[in-house]
């Protein structure tokens, strides 16, 4: 195992009910690297990401963070990892700033209001700062969720279809943010069906399941 591999997966197997989705999966992700998880619908991409976060338990095998099984270093791992799933984790009754405030509080961190507003504006939400998220569009709510992701300053991003519902500007912005994150020594594991423009980024591709898909971007 290379020294810079912060996240490593050893002989991982995942089953949903009776069905074995994958087994004997091995990979490592180091600082500055992006792991792009690819595969058709229902092949186990989301299941893999949920295993990586620790939300689900593997059928067999082990996931290690900084060389330790994630079950053993839960607090450290959770402090350095942030997960964005299909659901945004955005409360409809709260406005974007309140959403970020509670997201930070729930991670046990102090809330930096200026920085949060700055991030929301960067993601094009300056006109929605005091509106309840209920009235925002799907894409705007996704942007709120992405702001929370950025605010968290985590080392490892685990992103499940982060580009769903985003327009071309936001996709371009997101590509830039991922590049910045990796350039700053961060790392990311992401699934996406969209082609990403990630020049100058160290990308690993991982195919989940046995259905081959055409090479993207």
């Amino acid at each position, binding site marked *: 195992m290379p020294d810079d591999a912060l996240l490593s997966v050893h002989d991982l197997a995942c089953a949903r009910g009776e069905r074995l989705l994958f087994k004997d999966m091995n990979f490592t992700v180091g600082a500055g690297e992006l792991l792009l998880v690819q595969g058709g619908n229902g092949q186990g991409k989301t299941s893999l990401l949920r295993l990586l976060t*620790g939300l689900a338990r593997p059928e067999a095998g082990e996931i290690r963070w900084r060389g330790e099984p994630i079950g053993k270093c839960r607090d450290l791992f*959770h402090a350095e990892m942030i997960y964005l799933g299909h*659901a*945004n*984790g955005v*409360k409809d009754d709260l406005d974007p700033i309140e959403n970020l405030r*509670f997201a930070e*509080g*729930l991670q*046990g961190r102090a809330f930096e209001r200026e920085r949060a507003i700055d991030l929301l504006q960067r993601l094009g939400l300056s006109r929605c700062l005091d509106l309840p998220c209920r009235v925002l569009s799907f894409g705007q709510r996704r942007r709120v969720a992405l702001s929370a992701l950025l605010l968290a300053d985590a080392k490892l991003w685990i992103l499940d279809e982060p580009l769903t519902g985003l327009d071309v500007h936001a996709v371009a912005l997101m590509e830039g943010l991922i590049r910045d994150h990796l350039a700053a020594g961060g790392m990311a594991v992401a699934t996406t069906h969209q082609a990403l423009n990630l020049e100058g980024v160290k990308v690993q591709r991982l195919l989940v399941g046995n259905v081959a898909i055409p090479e993207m971007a």
Partner: protein
Amino acid sequence: MGRFLLAVLRRDLTLAARRRGDWLIAQFFFVMVASLFPLGVGPEPNMLARIGPGVLWVAATLASLLSLSRLFSDDHHDGSLEHMVLSPEPTVLLVLGKSLAHWLIYGIPLLLIAPVLGIQFNLSWEAIFILEISLLLGTPILSLLGGVGAALTLGLRGGGVLLTLLILPLYIPALIFGAGAVDGVVAGTGAQAHLSLLGAFLVLSLMIAPWIAAAALRVSLE
């Protein structure tokens, strides 16, 4: 740790303040159920004082159950529950915070309404005083044990009904000692023994329930 607990509390209280309709339903339910009994069994004052403590306690348990099915499910639907469980802070604290918030939102108002309903049942002032103490000790038990049920039935179809069937048996001790304490005053045998047992049950639930609920939550999210 303290900051996390406070964040959970503030978040749930803010959300409850934004959705006052849901909150009012539980209080109205309490008043309605308790008010149906005098209409059903007749207005005979001695009879009402006899059944009053039990009726009020049953109504309080049902009112608290009504709101429990949503303790985790709203956060589960919009994905924020996963974020909270993935927080570096312990899940036990999360569950404790959410149960505490549930008690503040749905339990405390019951305490405020109960004396008025007590008068309706012709309870003496002393009995009403003991009723308040028994509810003060008892309603946190309902929220704590309810958290276990809500975590176990999270994401299940028809989870609300299952939750009721699962949790009501666990409420029985609280119901017996809570209503028993007030009955004791009405019958003149004193309330202290019942209240002590109720307090012990509260301490027991406080020590055990958050851990079971946290484990159940992890299983339900898998």
